[in-house]
């Protein structure tokens, strides 16, 4: 109700400038890196119940963004690149996008989109007719006037853009609040340097009021001469994209001041959970620590569902027992998650060293295994090769190429040997 009233007011003010000619409040939602219909990656989704709940999480999150626009009766939605994954080839995705943007169009809300590196690979929107209120900026700088606000944007034409796109933007328009849309790794984002890097200082000095950025999945806000916002993604897809995920609601005041609010949109949140096992001597104590950590995580994070990865840290006395019974501990975690109801377990990680080595012969044998020796490594490499040949193509690279296999064999061998020793020793050392 409140929304509809505001909507009316806004239309009136927007279409008919005030008698003094001063610009009136302009509100928009800024998001990026939606990766629409990109599947979640977690072993927790083996549980059909979770799969049914959050299987379409990126869609649900995007629907949430559109709902937010409608509820807040904003003037525009800005999507700063990577609407899709490059691998996204289903026209169903594009149709869904068109339908959601259609809801904004029907409510008179404008949509501005630039293509990111991933979109550059995607072909699916080209065949689709988007609603008239949607502007997709091209590889050359474009401007869309929305009343007293000028939205500038440049899209990625290719998956890689080694040079800054900033010099290619037009000058800010006089008498308007200028907003720039750019997909960039920004400076200091290591490993992202082929994605249109640019310096924050340059953005601040550009004369634009607001920079709507995209590409980096972690949210960051920089205030200064310009407000520069990397909104992060609205929905994380795996444990690498852990944490709360959100969009940014921006208000450009009548006096040109810009206000920024974060609005959480993720329907499911990935999170690592540290479980301190140092000094724990018996298994039930470890299970209790794990349960407490899971409950604390549920208390601390607000997303409707949580996919957690417990990381057992500092296990010393129980290290050998852990090497043997990690599956039992995982089952405990899953049972606790089930008891909580909205907590799901991705997998269980054990961090830290080998723990307290057992004394006597077993300890001596364990120490000898630190260097498995060339014969064992060669036999191990053969075993890996045999399995890799049997794996589907999509998985083969996970086990390294023939050149890079040794390190992987050594690591897996160390992990496996600890488990086998623990199994043979019958749980010695815990």
């Amino acid at each position, binding site marked *: 109700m409140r929304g509809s009233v505001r909507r009316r007011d806004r239309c009136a003010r927007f279409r008919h400038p005030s008698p003094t000619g001063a610009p009136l409040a302009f509100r928009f939602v800024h998001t990026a890196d939606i990766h629409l*219909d990109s*599947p*979640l*990656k*977690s*072993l927790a*989704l*083996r549980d059909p119940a979770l799969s049914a709940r959050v*299987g*379409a999480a990126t*869609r649900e999150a995007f629907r949430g963004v559109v709902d937010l626009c409608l509820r807040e009766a904003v003037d525009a939605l800005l999507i700063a690149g990577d609407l899709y994954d490059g691998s996204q*080839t*289903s*026209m*169903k*995705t*594009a*149709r*869904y*996008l*068109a*339908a959601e943007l259609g809801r904004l169009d029907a409510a008179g809300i404008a949509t501005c989109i630039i293509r990111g590196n991933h979109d550059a690979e995607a*072909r*699916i929107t*080209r*065949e*689709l007719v988007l609603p008239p209120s949607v502007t997709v900026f091209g590889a050359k700088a474009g401007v869309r006037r929305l009343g007293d606000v000028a939205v500038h944007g440049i899209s990625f034409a290719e998956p890689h853009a080694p040079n800054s796109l900033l010099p290619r933007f037009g000058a800010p328009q006089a008498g308007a609040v200028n907003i720039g849309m750019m997909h960039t790794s920004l400076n200091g984002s290591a490993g992202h340097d082929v994605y249109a890097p640019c310096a924050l200082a340059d953005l601040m000095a550009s004369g634009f009021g607001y920079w709507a950025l995209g590409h980096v999945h972690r949210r960051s806000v920089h205030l200064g001469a310009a407000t520069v916002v990397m909104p992060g993604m609205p929905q994380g897809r795996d444990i690498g994209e852990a944490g709360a995920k959100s969009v940014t609601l921006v208000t450009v005041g009548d006096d040109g001041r810009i206000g920024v609010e974060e609005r959480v949109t993720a329907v499911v949140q990935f999170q690592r959970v540290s479980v301190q096992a140092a000094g724990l001597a018996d298994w039930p104590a470890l299970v209790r620590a794990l349960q407490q950590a899971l409950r604390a995580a549920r208390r601390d994070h607000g997303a409707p569902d949580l996919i957690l990865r417990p990381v057992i840290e500092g296990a010393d006395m129980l290290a050998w027992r852990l090497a043997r019974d990690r599956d039992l501990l995982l089952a405990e975690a899953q049972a606790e998650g089930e008891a909580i109801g909205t907590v799901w377990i991705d997998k269980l990680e054990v961090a830290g060293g080998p723990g307290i080595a057992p004394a*006597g*012969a077993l300890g001596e*044998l364990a120490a*000898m*295994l630190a260097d*498995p*020796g060339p*014969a*064992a490594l060669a*036999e*191990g490499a053969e*075993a*890996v090769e045999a*399995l890799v040949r*049997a*794996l*589907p193509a*999509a*998985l083969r690279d*996970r086990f390294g190429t023939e050149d890079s296999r040794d390190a992987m*064999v050594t690591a*897996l*061998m*160390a*992990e*496996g*040997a*600890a*488990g*086998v*020793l623990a*199994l*043979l020793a019958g749980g010695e050392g815990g």
Partner: protein
Amino acid sequence: MRLRRLDLVRYGRFTGGCLDFGAPVAGAPDLHVVYGPNEAGKSTALNAWLDLLFGIEAQSGYAFLHPYATMRIGAEVETGGRVLALSRIKGNKGTLLGESDRPVPEAVVLGALGGLDRRALREMFSLDDETLEAGGNSILDSDGEVGQLLFASGAGLAGFAPGLAALRKTPDPFFRAPRSGALTEMKARLATLDADRARLDTDARGYKRLLEARDDARGVLEAAEAGRRAPMAALAGVQRRLAALPSLRALEGVEARLAGMPDLAAPPQGWAAELAALEQARAAGAGRLGALCTALDGLRAERAALVPDPAVLAERGRIGAVAALRSGHDEAVKDLPARRGEAAALALRIAAALDRLGRAGADPAQVLPDRAAVATLRALIEARSGVGQALDTALGEVALARGARDRALADGAGEAGVVGDTAALALLLRRVQDEAPVAAHSRATEAVDAAGLALDQRLRSLLPWAGGGVELAGLVLPGPGVIAGWKAGGAQASEARATAVADLRRLDAGLAGGVVAEVAGGVTLDTVAEARALREAAWAAHRAALDAGSASAFEAAMRRDDAVTARLAETLAEVRRRAEAEVARAVLVQERGLAAGRLAAAEADQQSLDAAMAVALSACGLPPMSPEALEGWMALRRVAVDGWDALGAARKGEARARAAVDAARAGLAAGLAEAGVSVGPDEGLTVLMARAGALCALAAERVAQQQAQRRAVAEVTLREAAEAQARAALAEWQGRWVAALAAAGMAAGHSVDAAREDIAVLEGLAADHRAHVELADRVTKMQANEAGYAVAVGALGSALGMVAEASTRLADAIAARLAQAAATAERVDVLEGKLAVALREAGAQQQALEATEARIGAMVAGFGAADAADLARRLALAAARVQALDEAARLAEALCEALEEPDAGAARAALAGLDRDVLTAERQALDDEVTARGAVSQAAYAALSEAQQRLDGVGGDDAVLHLAEARETLLLEMADEAEAHLARRLGLIAVEHGLRRYRDKHRSAMLDAASAAFRTMTRGAYAGLATQPEGAREVLVALSAGGGSKRAADLSKGTRFQLYLALRVAAYHERAAQGPVPPFVADDIMETFDDDRAAEAFAVMAGMAGVGQVIYLTHHRHLCDIAREVCPQVRLHQL
């Protein structure tokens, strides 16, 4: 672990044996040599050590002296820095005891053994000849790898190899070659997901194709529609013209009809209809008026014919009243005779009743008593029988009770004397009866007799020993230790004697067989010299002669010489043998002397033992006998002593029983005296019991009699009271009866039956009297009704002037006349009403007719017609013309509309000259063309719909997303499983290789140790040990100092045993390096070692004693000397 002391408390032949190894001495090797001759118990001590650690075996061979229940081994053991005092007894559990014989857990010792079980300890570190060899072979043969047991157990990783093999064999659920396991199943699921996606999904290119297909279909549809439009328009034109042709024909017909019509002025609207209505109204009005006049005439005639009767109508009320009396009159006439008869009959019955009551002629009303009096009488009559019966019953019971009382009193009168209180006596008697002391005493006496007999029998079995039970019990016999000593001494002497006898026998045989025979042949040196001289002479003769004779002579001489020489050689050999035999014989003779000495010593031992035994036995009053016989006699004595004890017990029982009898008799005698019965001293318990029983029975009978008398007297009193009560009730009834008779007006002396009869008569009289009064009343009323009715009818008849006659007939005539008069009056009223109505209607009809006529006239005049009929004709003509004009206009309009022409003229022009058939043919042709083009369009439309549908079918649903999600999850699962599989697999590989390296490392260390020990013990004859592959396994070989190698089986027994010992030595050192070791115990394992190698072996064991405790048991004194020589700190012990 260290053994400080071993106590053979009761174990094997030991009783209280002890081996004390003492505390360890710092800096000195913990080496102990225990010397004991044969049979001293070395093997027993070794076995006791194992039994102490692991429990006495279920079927122990060391229970020949001390039975299982008494076997016991003790020890002081040092472990973990403490000294534990432990004992082991035989049993199922809790057999290891600590301080104060409290059971201690087995783990106390097992823990200190580092996982060695009995078999392992026996084969590794508790050795005798047998286990040294068996264990050594099992080490060499152990499955596929040299000394796996030794190395593995020595290294503490026993069980790893089989565990690893089991893990290796466990099938991997994820990946099994070539196409099984979860991976294969997952790949199949992946393929299904991909196929589902391919089926459900549309990519950009596919979508573009769908769009193009839709647009193509739309183009085709539009072209088809365009081609269909022209023929459709042409067809519409032809159809219009064809449809217009009939309209044109109709228009022309109407126009022709109009041309033939006169041009009349149009009449006002509705005239034609009005005229027709007026004509119709006029004819109807005239008809109705005629009918009304006819009806009026009829009504008037009927009215005139009616005559009214007002007189009778005036009397209508009185006539009604008289008619109401008619029913009473009629009923009286009918019933009166019967009712009068009934009244007479009742009067007769009343008179008769009064007569019976003795009141003839009296007024019944005066005679009848009131109801209450009669009711009282009835009640008293009913009560009378009850009151009387109660009295009769009471009288009878009083008589009965008095009779009973008199009998009871009479019963008790004859008894004399009073019996005292016997309750206590009865109780006492009961208890004595329950206890039955006499029977118990009799049983006890029998038991004493039986025990006495048995004892006598057992004492007889002890003959020649003579004496009674007391002497037997007091007999002091030699203890089991003494007897065992005798037995052992006897056995020893007997064994020594047997050995000596056997030796003597053997030596005698040797002496007998060794007699040196005289030398046969008797060749002497002289004979030889003579033969040689003869040969030499023959040779010289032959050399001189060189003829056949000399040759033969020489040959003969030579042959004789050879023969003599041969015999001489034999003789010499014989002589040598004889000399040797004599030496041997001398030895034998010497040995025989020794053996005879041993025999004499043994016999002397036996005799002194026998003498000692005889002295000891005679002290007990026994003749000399063997220890075994003594043991047998002692067993019989134990039985006899038991019999003596049993007799004693039986005697005690008999005394107790006798005391019980006396006590019972005393009790009863006192009880009887109390009851006033004197008891003789000779009367036994049984007699007293009988007397007490009789006394008690008599007392009980007396008490019962007295109770019966008291009950009878009380009963009489009770019954007499009941009788008095019944009499009072009867008197009361009599009083009430007299009063009731008076109240009912009956004679005071009336009996109950007379009264009952009078009451019945009175009840009948009362009913009859009531009926008679009612009947008389009814007769009177009926007579009044009859008379009243006649008077009323007569008065009415005269008032109406009618002839007087019987009342009923007159009444009927009056009623008929009234009915006639009433009917006439009613008809007159009806007719007059109808006349008035008919007159009003006729007037109105006349007026309406006149108005209709006037209107018709006005219309005829107004239209200038001759009359109404003319007017009607003119109106019809005008109406037809107007209709035709309207039709023409409508047709013209329809024509214009059909042809889409502006006016009729143009329309007519358009149709001018057109032929219907030509048009029809043209329409058919166009119709066919349009149909054909329509089919094309339809197909194009369908194609467009389908293309559009396919496009719409792509949809924005999340089916593909869910498939992608499932695929991603499946891939993750596969990766995870693959990683787990590889970790497992690689872990196994790493541990297998690691374990092998670990074994190699330790094996080489042990092999070095074993090599060194072996080299030392063989005094360098062997350089060491090595392994070498043989088929699938490795075998251990000994490396000879001079090069070359030998398998263990190929070594001499002594060297092989040295190899076995070397392996144990290496294992002991290896184990000691890992932690504490148990003592190394060996029982004469160096039988096959020469002294040098034995010395080296002691040196090696001294080395072991530096890291653990070494105990060597031997029966060779010289080994003790060697040990002391090699290791001066060795501690020697004697067993």
